[in-house]
């Protein structure tokens, strides 16, 4: 059998691969010790609510990034979904939610066709699409705030056992389903293969374009669900839905260990931990009574470090291949 690799190398790999988990654990422990309010059930319920929108959208984005692409339109799709809820306010909530999700599917499909079949650059394409989609939903809502239907707003307040919000359960289900898809299905294996080497994948006979299209459909669907969850929780359709979410999501996905170069990463635990890290920094600092104005700066520093780590990993990797 092959000789085991030197232990030092493994240790370094652990730090590189799981560094952000250590960071997350560090922050949780730190905040728990310093603040009494942090490690309480009600605070974690709060965290789960604040996190669920980003969790849902980032989960879908993770698949896109694993194939080596990017989707900047998720924030706009979330807002489109929210505005569909507003448009269909006179329908039954079921119809309204289903329609909103279908629109997410359709918009994602549009992205997929542009990127996979017309071979357009995903970064610039989804950037253009992002502007257009947001414009569409602003036209629908007139750029102002509208109350969501009573049933939908009520759904946003549902808590199982008084502590587990429905909106978080939905995002948890989305994440679990996507992680299972990634790790247990053919489709998941294809995603990684395409991210590793698209030319090799197509030579070996993987339906590359199909997989890429589907990945964008999934991302669009998740974004739509995220928009619906925001509407439920806020009880309103506002222009803040999904605003700036694309960059937060990209940051969370990268912090969670999914490489922007494609081919590696996961939804659970990676992306979830990435999102939680961002949310917990805000929440924890809030509980500490630190000036709230420092949160974004701390978050910025953490994101910068995480991204730096990702690049280091990739430098090492490319050095090995040359």
């Amino acid at each position, binding site marked *: *059998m*092959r000789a085991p*690799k030197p232990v030092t190398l493994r240790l370094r790999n652990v730090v590189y691969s799981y560094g952000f988990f250590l960071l997350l654990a560090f922050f949780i422990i730190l905040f728990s010790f310093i603040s009494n309010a942090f490690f309480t059930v009600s605070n974690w319920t709060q965290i789960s609510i604040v996190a669920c929108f980003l969790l849902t959208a980032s989960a879908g984005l993770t698949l896109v990034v694993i194939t080596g692409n990017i989707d900047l339109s998720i924030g706009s799709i979330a807002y489109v979904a929210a505005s569909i809820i507003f448009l269909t306010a006179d329908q039954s909530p079921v119809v309204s939610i289903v329609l909103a999700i279908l629109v997410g599917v359709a918009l994602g499909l549009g992205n997929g066709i542009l990127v996979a079949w017309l071979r357009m650059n995903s970064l610039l394409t989804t950037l253009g699409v992002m502007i257009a989609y947001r414009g569409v939903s602003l036209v629908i809502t007139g750029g102002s705030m509208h109350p969501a239907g009573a049933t939908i707003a009520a759904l946003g307040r549902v808590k199982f056992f008084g502590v587990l919000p429905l909106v978080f359960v939905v995002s948890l289900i989305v994440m679990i389903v996507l992680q*299972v898809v990634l790790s*247990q*299905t*053919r489709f998941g*294996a*294809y995603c*990684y*293969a395409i*991210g*590793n*080497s698209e030319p*090799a*994948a197509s*030579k*070996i*006979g*993987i339906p590359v374009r199909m997989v890429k299209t589907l990945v964008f459909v999934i991302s669009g669907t998740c974004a739509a669900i995220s928009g619906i969850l925001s509407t439920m929780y806020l009880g309103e359709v506002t222009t803040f839905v999904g605003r700036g979410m694309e960059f937060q999501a990209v940051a969370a996905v990268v912090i969670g260990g999914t490489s922007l170069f494609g*081919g*590696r990463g996961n939804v659970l635990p990676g992306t979830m931990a990435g999102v939680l890290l961002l949310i917990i920094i805000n929440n924890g600092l809030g509980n500490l009574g630190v000036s709230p104005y420092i949160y974004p700066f701390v978050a910025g520093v953490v994101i910068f470090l995480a991204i730096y780590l990702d690049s280091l990993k990739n430098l090492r*990797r490319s050095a*090995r291949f040359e």
Partner: protein
Amino acid sequence: MTPGAAKLRMSDISKQFPGVKALDDVSFEANRGEIVGLVGVNGAGKSTLMNVLGGIYHPDQGEIFVDGAKVAFHSPKDAEKHGISFIHQELLFFASQTVAENIFIARLFANPSFPLFVSKRTANSEAAKYLKMLGSDITPTTIMEDLSVGERQVVEIARALAVGSEVVIFDEPTSSLSLKEKDTLFKVIRRLKAEGKAIIYISHFLDEILELCDRFIVLRNGRIHGHGDIKDITKRDIIRMIIGRDINYERKTDRTLVEKPVLRVLGIRSGALLKDVGFELHEGEILGVWGLMGSGRTELIRAILGLDRIDGGCLEFREKDALRPISPAELLGHCGYITESRHTDGLFLNQPIWKNVSVTALGEYESQWGFLDTGEEMGTATKYIDLLKIAAPGNATRVQSLSGGNQQKVVFAKWLNRRARILILDEPTRGVDVGAKLEISNLIRDLSREGTSTLLITSEIEEMISLSDRVLVLREGGIVADVRGTDINNANLMSLSLGEATVQ
């Protein structure tokens, strides 16, 4: 299936390319449990033959039979369907995934109890089966990027087995392997043979052919120039067949040069690739560096120019009247470096010709206000378009719309414009049509007459013989001979590089 028929038979295959008959009535067969060696110099037709077999080229004439049944290949997929697999130098693999996933990626197993999911357990055990068949101890759950190049190659062979290939073609498989990995590969190939596969093995290294193969086929100029059983033949016989007696390339340079060294290379070492290489390059000289693939010729150039790391050695360069030590990076500044990979590091494809030509001497076009004199830049480009007979509508034509030969001339123009004292040419005529080849050869000669020193690497022996004033023969990372004058002929160069003493 016809009983007794050969596993694979190619009969009377001909293929014509513009200006060249790449394959002329080539027939051969490969049987089960047999390793056939395919040898010949570059351009002899090996690659064309294999591309016909792989469904990439369609032959003008001839037929292919698998198990006695006639088949037609229109795409690489057709070839695969008939059980033909290629193991190329550049491996197809997915770095972050496991060995088992790499083997079965295109046809993962369904989980018996839940068919939507894949069964990793089945994949792992099946992968282990194929790896064991190959005599390898790679664990199926290992991540691909943790394997060495040799191990990755074994995984790719396992993939070929897993898709049910009956014919496996190896194209120069050992060129990036260590000695130990090579032994492992040979063991694997022998296993394949024992499993009853038909194997075609293409290599420049005759020792490998003699060690591994049962039969051999020699191609030269698109025709079969010898075949038979390995046990009936000596290395010398094969060399004779590869070189042929009929053609002896005419040497067009027979001039006496004043030996005035411009560059002196001393004891360059780089891992196992280069062992203590030293030579001098004189003013106005065309110095050929001849060697087979893997002999270290490209590595030598890259080491001298500081593009790869070196472990030892030093360089001296003539400045004014004396040789002075110089670093590889500084030397790059005095050299023009022309490679076959002009798309990656030779040209700015989406830019016009004139911007490509002026890049190496931008400072000369600056006016006193710091503006570039575009007109003068274009004038320079036009001058070179005329001088080198670049077929382009004008100096503003974007380089990507030119043919390969004209693109290569633009690369020449770029370095001529810097008035580089040393030109380093690595396969300068690869992918260039015959007419342009001739023009480039003439250009190289003209330049040397004007005093430019040239270091020439080429796989085409005709080019090497007709251009070089002197030839260094490299073998296994060391210089084995310094051939001059009338000794520069194909018999000498081939036998020296293949590892025989001088034949004639």
